[in-house]
């Protein structure tokens, strides 16, 4: 039995001269809930579309369920549930008609009971037309359509984008329902940390097309740290510390964001630069993500900042 369900090797994509994805190496093991994190335009959708063979890689390769993404057979596609970004469904169809349409492609796998239960849970009638649904309701229909055939792997492109807190929670609960089934693998992209934190057991962080982290959530929490070095006199202009991501100076404070730096290395550096005090700042996952993916501030946001 295949243990790596989704794999990309040096996956690179250029749109014209614009680099969208830069040598992405990912391995999603069986049964894993994989949170694919990144800011808008970071390359998440491109990576997902490449995995599904909807885009062609400039270099590198991707495979799902052991099948090359460019050569996905109808049988393999049938095993992969895909929630498109923005939940683009046929606007003119009613939910009931869409169910019949989708069901025809999964004659042996379609779980009508699950589909009906999900619609009931979300409070949706089959008579409703897709175009009359809100974004959230469309997301719910999309999830029900993807889950009803009981796919072995689900790939969801920012499924909670544009949904309010309540709908997002419902959507994630729906996802957890699927997770509870043994052996299912889910990769979902998001830029909402709370969502990822709730369900993912492994995350990948992508920024400007480059994979910046691929680890468990706990590892990510452990590795991203922020420390303040407090000085009595002048703050040194340069500082040499392993894993330095950003540094910011605030009067006599030097604020450092670090990746994978050990306590020992922090202490040693603090002594070496003559810091009076070294304070560790607690970061929640969202702060960690922001620190990790924030680009260098090029200019002040407001005039008075200058």
């Amino acid at each position: 039995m295949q243990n790596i369900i989704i794999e990309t090797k040096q996956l690179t994509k250029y749109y014209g001269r614009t680099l969208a994805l830069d040598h992405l190496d990912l391995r999603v093991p069986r049964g894993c809930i994989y949170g694919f994190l990144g800011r808008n335009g970071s390359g998440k959708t491109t990576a997902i579309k490449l995995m599904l063979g909807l885009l062609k890689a400039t270099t590198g390769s991707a495979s799902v369920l052991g099948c090359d993404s460019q050569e996905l057979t109808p049988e393999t596609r049938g095993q992969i549930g895909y929630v498109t970004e923005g939940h683009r469904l046929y606007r003119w169809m009613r939910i009931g008609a869409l169910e019949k349409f989708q069901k025809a492609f999964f004659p042996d796998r379609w779980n009508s009971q699950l589909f009906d239960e999900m619609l009931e849970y979300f409070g949706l009638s089959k008579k409703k037309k897709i175009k009359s649904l809100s974004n959230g309701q469309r997301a719910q229909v999309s999830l029900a359509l993807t889950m009803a055939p009981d796919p072995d792997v689900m790939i969801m492109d920012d499924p909670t984008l544009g949904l309010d807190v309540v709908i997002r929670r419902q959507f994630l609960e729906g996802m957890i329902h699927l997770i509870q089934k043994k052996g299912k693998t889910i990769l979902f992209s998001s830029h909402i940390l709370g969502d990822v934190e709730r369900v993912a057991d492994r995350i990948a962080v992508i920024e400007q097309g480059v994979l910046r982290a691929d680890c468990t959530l706990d590892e990510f929490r452990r590795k991203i740290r922020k420390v303040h070095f407090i000085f009595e006199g002048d703050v040194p202009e340069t500082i040499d510390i392993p894993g330095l991501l950003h540094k910011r100076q605030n009067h006599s404070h030097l604020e450092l964001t670090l990746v994978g730096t050990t306590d020992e290395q922090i202490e040693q550096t603090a002594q070496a630069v003559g810091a009076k005090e070294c304070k560790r700042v607690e970061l929640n996952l969202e702060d960690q993500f922001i620190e990790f993916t924030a680009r260098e501030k090029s200019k002040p946001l407001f005039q008075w900042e200058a």
Partner: protein
Amino acid sequence: MKFAALLKKELRICLPWLLLCIVVFGLFGTLTIKGRMLNQKHYLDQGYQDGHPYYNYVLNTPIYETGPLILMVAMALGVLLAIVQFFLPELFRTWAFTIHRSIRPHLIVWSKFSAAAITFIASMGILWTLLYSYSAVPGRFYLPLFFRTYLEGWVYILVGLIVYWGTALSAISTTHLYTTRLLGLAIATGVIFLMLLQTSITGAITVAAIGAVLLIVQIFHTFLAREF
């Protein structure tokens, strides 16, 4: 079953245009033929008089006048069907939802072509056959109809299909404007021009067949090679 589901969806997309086509073509086709029948009767009753366009009203078979109507309606239907089937999925970004399913992608294209062909036959084809059959009843018109006229009507319907394939190719092309995006429409225009220049039905059908093969092959190539 899978293809049937795709075909049903495509037919549902085409249905409003099929109905519109029946109304427009049915209405104007009937009006044209009925109008000429009334005129013919009027002039026959009056007898020949100098200065009257006697030939036009009596000797010329009125069914010929439906030719330009068939051509215009078929071309408009071709453009509309190609837009709803190939351009709107681009606009509403539903291609990914359509493509990612347990079916070979070329069947998606075939389902669209089949639905379009059915739409053309069910609207224009049947109506044209009815109009012709009505007009061909002996005694309705002064001159008997030639079967060639009926076939010419079908050639004009074929023009509509060529326009459909040309527009479809332009709609799914994603690369440079002048090298490929307009290629479909350019090929279709050329094929139609050559078709209408032909003096024989066989010649027109041969040109249409060559054009259709060219466009269909290019549509499949573009569809299977492009990104979604």
